[in-house]
C-alpha cells in the first residue's frame, strides 16, 4: 500500500517554494531581504531550489546597520557567490550621513530602529514592489496575525485591521501604484523547523550560531557581546564565556546564550529543551510589551 504523505518539513518546504514562485510571478520587481542570519539563509536556499536551474529572478538586499559581527559579512559574501545571486547593500550609515535619520544617543543606543528608514528608502530607490522576508509567526505575538502577502500602504505602514484574508493557497498581490508588499514564505515555520531543515539540507550557517568563547557582559537580562559598537557601563562586568547566538542581528542588541552546543544535533537538542523564545535574547523587543507591533506599524520588517 502506497501512502502519499509528506513529513511536516516537506510540507513547509513545498509551501515556501510555492510562495516564492507566486511572488516572482505576481510582482514586477521583488527583492529578498538578506541579513546573513539563519532565517534569511534558509530563505535564499529555498529560493535557489524554487528556480533551479535558472538563477534567482530577484536580487538579495542587505540592510546593513554597520554594527556587524565581522564573521557575518564574510559569510554573506561567500554564500551569495555560491548560489550565484546578486547582492545589493543599503547602509544605515548612508542614511545617517545624509541626515535621513539621527543616531540614537546613550549607552543603550542601537541602530535597529533606524534600519526601517534605510529599508524603506532602499525599496523606493530600487522600485521594489515586494520584499521577501524570513519573518515567522511563532517569533513574536504581533507576527501571529501576519499574512504571507502582507500589504503595506504608500508609507510602508502595516495596518493590522486592513489585511487581506488568505484562503486555500490563493494569494492576492494586486496593488495600487506606490503600495508594496512584504512576503513571508516561512510564516508557518517554527524555530525548531528552521533548525531541522538546516540539518536536513546540510545548509551552512555562520559560526556565531555554534558555541564559541567570547567576551560578554550582562545588561537587562541579556548577554551582550563586547564589540566596537557598544559601551560597557560602570558596574557591568565583562567575562569570557562559552556562548552562541540564537539570532544574529545588530551586534548592539543581539544577546548570546551560554551554550556548549557546537554542532547542529546539539543545537536542536538545546532548542527542544529551551525555556526562552529566541527573541527572548533580543533587547529591542524588551523595550516595551508592544515593541514589535509598534515597529511593524512604522514599516519595520
Amino acid at each position, binding site marked *: 500500500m502506497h501512502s502519499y504523505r509528506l513529513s511536516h518539513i516537506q510540507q513547509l518546504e513545498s509551501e515556501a517554494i510555492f510562495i516564492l514562485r507566486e511572488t516572482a510571478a505576481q510582482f514586477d520587481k521583488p527583492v529578498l531581504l538578506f541579513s546573513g542570519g539563519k532565517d534569511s539563509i534558509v530563505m535564499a536556499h529555498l529560493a535557489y531550489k524554487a528556480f533551479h536551474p535558472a538563477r534567482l529572478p530577484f536580487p538579495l538586499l542587505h540592510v546593513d546597520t554597520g554594527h556587524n559581527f565581522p564573521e557575518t559579512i564574510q559569510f554573506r559574501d561567500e554564500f551569495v557567490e555560491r548560489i550565484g545571486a546578486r547582492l545589493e547593500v543599503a547602509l544605515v550609515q548612508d542614511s545617517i550621513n545624509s541626515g535621513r535619520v539621527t543616531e540614537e544617543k546613550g549607552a543603550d543606543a542601537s541602530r535597529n530602529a533606524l534600519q526601517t528608514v534605510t529599508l524603506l528608502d532602499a525599496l523606493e530607490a530600487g522600485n521594489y514592489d515586494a520584499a521577501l522576508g524570513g519573518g515567522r509567526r511563532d517569533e513574536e505575538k504581533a507576527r501571529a496575525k501576519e499574512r504571507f502577502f502582507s500589504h503595506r500602504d504608500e508609507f510602508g505602514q502595516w495596518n493590522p485591521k486592513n489585511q487581506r484574508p488568505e484562503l486555500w493557497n490563493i494569494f492576492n498581490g494586486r496593488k495600487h501604484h506606490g503600495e508594496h508588499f512584504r512576503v513571508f514564505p516561512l510564516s508557518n515555520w517554527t524555530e525548531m523547523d528552521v533548525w531541522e531543515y538546516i540539518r536536513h539540507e546540510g545548509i551552512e550557517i555562520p559560526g556565531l550560531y555554534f558555541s564559541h568563547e567570547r567576551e560578554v557582559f550582562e545588561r537587562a537580562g541579556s548577554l551582550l557581546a563586547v564589540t566596537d559598537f557598544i559601551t560597557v557601563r560602570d558596574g557591568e562586568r565583562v567575562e569570557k564565556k562559552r556562548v552562541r547566538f540564537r539570532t544574529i542581528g545588530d551586534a548592539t542588541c543581539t544577546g548570546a546564550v551560554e551554550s556548549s552546543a557546537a554542532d547542529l544535533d546539539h543545537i536542536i537538542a538545546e532548542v527542544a529543551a529551551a525555556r526562552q*523564545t529566541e527573541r527572548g535574547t533580543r533587547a529591542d523587543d524588551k523595550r516595551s510589551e508592544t515593541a514589535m507591533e509598534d515597529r511593524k506599524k512604522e514599516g519595520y520588517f
Partner: protein
Amino acid sequence: MPDNELSTLPENGELSAVDLLRFTTAGSVDDGKSTLIGRLLYDSKNIFEDQLEAIETSSKSRGDDNVNLALLTDGLKAEREQGITIDVAYRYFATPKRKFIIADTPGHIQYTRNMVTGASTANLAIILVDARKGVIEQTCRHSFIANLLRIQHVVVAVNKMDLVDYSEEVYERIVARFQEFSSRLNNLVDVSFLPISALHGDNVVEKSANMDWYAGPTLLYHLESVYIGTDHNHVQARFPVQWVIRPHSDEYHDFRGYAGRVAGGVFKPGDEVQVQPSGFSSRIKAIHAADGQLNEAFAPQSCSILLEDEIDISRGDMIVKPNNPPEQGQDIGAMVCWFGDQKMRVGGKYALRHTTKEVKAIVRELSYKININTLHKIEDDQEFGLNEIGCVQLRTSSPLYYDSYKDNRITGSFVLIDEQTNETVAAGMII
C-alpha cells in the same frame, strides 16, 4: 512511501514520522477558546518562560486571580485594550507525534469571514460548546461553516464541565442535540465529542479525575492520532502552472521546466498528459525538485515538470491527464461567502482568481442566500453583504478548468477581487 522513491525524503527517520495537522478553533465570545488554546500550549509544554512571565505580569496588572492563559493568544495592543480578538491568528506547537498549526479565529461579529479563512486550510475543526448553554445558534453556524468548507474532521468540545458538576447527563444531552441537528450536514463525516474544562485542564492534555464516566481519549491524544492521510485528492491529476523555468544558460540550453504545486493526483515520468487550455498532449520527460529528480509527484508537492514536446505553456495553464480531465466552462455555480464591506453587485464585474489563473467574472445571479443559524434558504432577498453565504452564478471572461469543491479543495475554490480597491471580497466554492 517506499524507500528511495523521493530524493527529498529526509534521511532522518525520526523526522519523516512527524506529520502536520492544521486545525481551526470555533467558539463564541465567552466559550473559553483562548483559554483552551492556552491550556493546550501550556500543558503540552509549548510555553516558554519569557512568554509565561509576560502573561503573569499582565494578569496581575489586570487584577486577574490566576494566570490568565487566554492572554497567551491575545496578540495586539488594540485587542488587549478592547478585550477582543481581531482576525485570524496562527499558533504553533508540537508533540513528539505531530506538529500542529492552529488557526485561531475570534468569536465576534466578523466571525463568518474569519472562520471561513481559518477553515480553508484546516484538516480539523474544534467546535466549542459551553456546557451551561448547550447547542446554540452559534454552534449551528460554526458547524455549517465546517460542513461548507468540507473540513473532514470535527471535534465538538463541551467546555466548562466544571460549572455543571462534571455531569454526564448534561454532556449526553448536548451530544444528542448536536447529532440531531448535524444530521442535516452531510459533509461532516468524522465527528467526535469530548467533555473538557479548559480552565482546569480536564481531558485537554491530562485525563480528567472528575469524569470517570468518560472513557474516550483526551483532546491532545485525539489531535495526535486522528487519521489525515486521505485529505488530499490523489486520483485526479491536476498541476496548475505557476512559473516557467528557463535558465538561458549554456549548461541548460533547452531546459524548460513548468513549475508549480501538485493540486491533485499523481504524476510520473512517462505519463501521458494534456495541457489546458490548448488541449495539446505530450509525455512527462522528467519531474525535478532542486535536489534531484522525482519518480513521482503528488499533492501538495512543489516541483517542476519537463515535457517531451515543446509546447507553449504559461502561468495559469493546467497540466492534467486525458483520462480524467477537469470540468471546463465559463458558467460557474458556486457557494460564496462575502467578505467585502460593500455589498455584492448583481451584474457587477470582479477579478476572479482560481489556482494560478486570473480572469474577469460577472455576477449573473444570486440564486439564494442561507440563514446560517437555521440553515434555511432565503430566495426573495437580493441584498448580499459582509459575512453572508449564498449560491451565486458567475460568467467568466474565459474558460476555467475546475473541479467541484467536494472533489478538490484547490481546483474547486476561488476568490473574487474588487478591481477598484484590490480587496479580496469573496471566497467561492464551486458546486
